[in-house]
């Protein structure tokens, strides 16, 4: 394991926050993407059936 | 154009609202500061340039949404867009009217409020000068922000969020000009920058504002 010395908390906090923020953004993007995709497919199916 | 300017000024005077309200707001903000930071003259005198500029800026912000919102609601903007005057002239004129009813009174009232905040004597002329040069930019930028949000039901808060970041350079150079004036340093650079921002805003933003209004009307 790498030795971080007295700044271990600082470095780990920086990496931790970054990973959290990036993962949060990825999660939001994917979730909304999946939701919109599902909604669009449902709409297309419904209109194909009715129209 | 003169007709529009005169009408806007008449409206501002008759309704009373924007005109006196901004000044009163400026006064209250300035009076509140000593209660917050304590009555010590030295401290107040040092932060006075910044406080006065921030106060003027907020007071200016207060009346921005009235620039176009009322004309949008009663259909005047629709009719104006089909009138022979180009919308660019309309936006510039309305910004000018806003400055005459807000920026100019604020500029004139600022020295009196400077007394309340123990602004050093050397600062008074610079305070008036920098506000006179800088507040037209505030009105023009604000008119642009108001044009962007004119079609929105509750655009007021959004307007502040859009406009305040655009106000940053004006605030920095304006307050710095007064600070340098107080300390006896040369003030040419911030004053010229302030003038540049004002001239640039007045030259470019009427077009951006007119474009935004055209989009909002369709």
């Amino acid at each position, binding site marked *: 394991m*790498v*030795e*971080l*010395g007295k*700044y271990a908390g*600082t*470095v780990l*906090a*920086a*990496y931790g*926050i*970054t990973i959290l*923020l*990036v993962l*949060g*953004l*990825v999660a*939001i*993007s*994917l979730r*909304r*993407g999946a939701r*919109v*995709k599902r*909604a*669009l497919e449902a*709409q*297309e199916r*419904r*209109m194909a059936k009715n129209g | 154009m003169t007709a529009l300017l005169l009408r806007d000024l008449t409206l501002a005077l008759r309704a009373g609202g924007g005109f006196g309200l901004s000044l009163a707001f400026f006064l209250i903000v300035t009076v509140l500061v000593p209660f917050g930071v304590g009555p010590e003259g030295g401290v107040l005198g040092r932060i006075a340039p910044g406080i006065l500029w921030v106060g003027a800026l907020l007071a200016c912000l207060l009346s921005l949404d009235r620039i176009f919102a009322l004309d949008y609601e009663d259909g005047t903007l629709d009719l104006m867009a089909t009138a022979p005057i180009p919308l660019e002239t309309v936006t510039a004129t309305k910004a000018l009217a806003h400055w005459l009813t807000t920026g100019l009174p604020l500029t004139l009232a600022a020295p009196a409020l400077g007394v309340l905040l123990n602004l050093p004597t050397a600062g008074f002329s610079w305070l008036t000068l920098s506000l006179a040069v800088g507040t037209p930019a505030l009105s023009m930028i604000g008119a*642009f922000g108001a044009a*962007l*949000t004119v*079609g*929105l039901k509750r655009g007021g808060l*959004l307007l502040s*969020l*859009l406009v*305040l*970041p*655009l106000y*940053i*350079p004006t605030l*920095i*150079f304006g307050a*710095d000009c007064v*600070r*340098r004036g107080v300390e006896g340093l040369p003030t040419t*650079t*911030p004053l010229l*920058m302030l003038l540049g*921002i004002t001239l640039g805003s007045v030259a*470019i*933003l009427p077009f*951006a504002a007119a*474009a*935004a209004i055209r*989009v*909002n009307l*369709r």
Partner: protein
Amino acid sequence: MSIWEYANPKKFMQTSAWALPWVTGLAVLTLITGLVWGFFFTPDDFRMGSTVKIIYIHVPAAIMATGTWFMMLAASLIWLIRRHHVSVLAAKAAAPVGTTMTLIGLFTGAIWGQPMWGTWWAWDPRLTAFLILFLFYLGYMALWEAIEDPDTAADLTSVLCLVGSVFAIISRYAVLFWNQGLHQGSSLSMDAEEHVSDVYAWPLWVAIVGFGLLFVSLVLIRTRTEIRSRRLRALEARERMA
């Protein structure tokens, strides 16, 4: 074949569907390579100790924060001039990514500043400029959210992006000017990356490429979502009419 063909939504959906797995895979690969290399296999700096490892995220994030705004500016211009819907939707999709990058830059800068300068926040010109950039991103996204009609929103946000860019640049110089007035000299400068030695430079470059690919991947995903949501809206409107 002209590059504008990719501005066609259908063509864009096809091409991006093909490209997305590659870009995403490559992004993950380079990001892990760069960060692992930087985190585990570079020595500590004699002055900054192990905090030097923060540059592998701080610098790429800062580059992406400003880069994203420039990308949005270009996309907005393309929309205003050529009226390609994909372009402005890409700008809309990029804004949250840019905001996140700006936040990362600010947070890592503050965390770095604590041991280095003894304070979480200093009104250092560069940090201040990023704070202002953050405000611009917020305003841009808020305007998108506030306007109902998508084409109106596209036009107005593009105009805001244009005007905002000019004022962002003026702010950058204003802040430099303003801070010099206070500090004289820049003992708090974050210029470390401008004279990093090779040991740090290579993993840093890999990390920058990784962040860039991550940005492209996220923007592709989000733009696809925006295009789908526009189509969904159009279909719903048609259903109401029929």
